[in-house]
């Protein structure tokens, strides 16, 4: 009698588990479906001439032909209304990599100083950094416009670079300070006794110990620069300084003339690919940071 009862209980438990899994998965699918469909549509659009719902009318690669010379052709005209794709891609890459590198340099120097030296106002500075991080950059748009104009950096990528780095630094410094806190004094002292001066100790022993932090800041900086839109939109007026975000926006809003949605989709996919690749490559590092904690290698 007991056996039958416990078997029934087991079956009930199994059914319960199945049902809860079913409900959970349904909710998940419902929530992620729109995004998945969006990306699916993007890909299909880029390889078809016309998309009816999710079904391409005809599969073609003609949307990709503009990559031959980088100039996006506008049907019915001979002119080039949009800047060269390769120039724009180069701008984007240049901006992203300099934002990343500059951030790593400044954040590691500042993070080290804040972590190691006790100076007056240190805790206030740390609190200020935290507040700055949560500051919405958008509210500064008009003020920055005036400032950049005054120093003559309006309509330059350097202007955008400075603004981006300045607004991303608080997070970068916070991350690096955290990593430096995890490097014990013993290691530095040991390096000094072994024959280093202060700078050598920093370069040869301390920095390698925070490699994960440096990578994290570089990755975040790169991605931040790569996806930058608002500041480029506001502070850049010449087409030759456009980044991919500007190009895609122009194509989608049909700024100048009509351009086929297929070509727009191609531009978007190309904009997206480096980010996906970066994530796949950097995921190992980011996961290591998550699991192993700061400082562990």
């Amino acid at each position, binding site marked *: 009698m007991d056996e039958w009862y416990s078997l029934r209980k087991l079956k009930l438990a199994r059914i319960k588990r199945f049902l809860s899994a079913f409900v959970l998965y349904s909710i998940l699918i419902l929530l992620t479906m729109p995004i998945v469909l969006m990306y699916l549509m993007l890909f299909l659009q880029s390889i078809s001439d016309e998309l009816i719902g999710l079904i391409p009318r005809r599969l073609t690669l003609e949307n990709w032909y503009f990559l031959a010379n980088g100039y996006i052709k506008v049907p019915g005209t001979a002119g080039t209304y949009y800047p060269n794709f390769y120039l724009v891609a180069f701008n984007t890459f240049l901006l992203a990599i300099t934002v990343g590198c500059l951030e790593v340099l400044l954040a590691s120097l500042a993070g080290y100083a804040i972590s190691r030296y006790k100076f007056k106002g240190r805790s206030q500075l740390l609190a200020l950094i935290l507040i700055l991080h949560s500051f919405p950059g958008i509210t500064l748009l008009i003020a920055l416009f005036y400032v950049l104009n005054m120093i003559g950096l309006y309509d330059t990528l350097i202007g955008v670079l400075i603004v981006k780095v300045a607004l991303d630094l608080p997070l970068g410094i916070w991350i690096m300070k955290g990593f430096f806190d995890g490097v014990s004094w*013993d290691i530095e002292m040991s390096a*000094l*006794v*072994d*024959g280093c001066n202060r700078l050598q100790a920093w370069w040869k*022993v301390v920095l390698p110990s925070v490699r994960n932090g440096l990578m994290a800041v570089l990755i975040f900086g790169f991605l931040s620069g790569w996806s930058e839109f608002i500041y480029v939109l506001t502070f850049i007026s010449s087409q030759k300084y456009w980044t991919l975000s500007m190009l895609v926006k122009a194509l989608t809003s049909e700024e100048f003339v009509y351009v086929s949605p297929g070509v727009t989709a191609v531009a978007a996919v190309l904009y997206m690919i480096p980010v996906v690749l970066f994530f796949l490559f950097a995921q190992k590092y980011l996961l290591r940071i998550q699991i192993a904690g700061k400082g562990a290698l």
Partner: protein
Amino acid sequence: MVKVKLVDLHKYFGKVKAVVGLNLTIDDGEFVALLGPSGCGKTTTLLMIAGIYKPTKGYIYFDDVIVNDLPPKDRNIGMVFQSYALYPHMTVFDNIAFPLKLRKEPKQEIRKKVREVAELLQISELLDRKPGQLSGGQQQRVALARALVKEPNLFLMDEPLSNLDAKLRVTMRAELKRLQKQLGITTIYVTHDQVEAMTMADRIAILNKGILQQVGRPEELYDKPANLFVAGFIGSPPMNFVECSLNQKGDDYFLEGEGINLKVNREIGKIIVSSGVSELILGVRPEDLEIGRAPDTQSITGEVYVLEPLGRDVIVNVKVGNNMLKVLAPQGFKASPGEKVALKLKMERMHIFDKRSGKAIV
């Protein structure tokens, strides 16, 4: 090899006086332990000798040369930290070779020296591994190798055995002592474990709250402690302390206190009287008390409280007045709680301290 002399050394961190008025000489080839509880200033002293902290006042001499302003890298010292401080991103080989690489020695030389030192410490098979892949004992030997590879004049160690398990600690104590004798390098060893200091050091310097309490050979500190602190710190189980005072009855002197009526011989009595101190503390080690049942003028009467068998001996806790005394009895000793016993002590093994200053009188 080098002789180290500390003259009137002070180190203040703002208002905190970490080291006060330290005078100490460490001879060439000597193994000196800096012993004391946490926060007594021993690590601070070590770091000043290493050059990482600058003394607030006073001088440090290496062989009659003042080295106060000499940076650590120029002092030719090898140092082992409690946490070993191995460089996690380098292999064991690179860790050991690091000081030599900084000196820009040729690759062949480096390889030879690293292999020699690795063999000495029996870590030759670990040279390709990273510190994270080693056990505690192995990491410690790598730290030792790194300190020794540059053939330093001075060897500094900051509680290197604290992070090892008890069994390994006992083995490594003997190993380190033998190594030091073999290489003959002047060594300064910081520890809070008096057993380590007693077994390893040629001389021990005991510190408390930044002040040097006593310096001398282990036997000296054990037999003739200079004050209450040293007496209570050295020896396990620690010395028993009982408050008492001296009373003269005719030609005889008696130490009287709670449950105590001890006759002391005339020389000792005269010394105590001439010191002018009235409030005394009697100190006697558990191993110097003999437990028996017949009380006389040479014994302290008390009541058995509890027995702690150790296998080799038995620690008997005896209540004397309001004090609890620990007595070391031979294996097999039996008594029940509440039993009255007499504790006999030998005159030569007795210590008398001034209650107020803590200094030893006899």
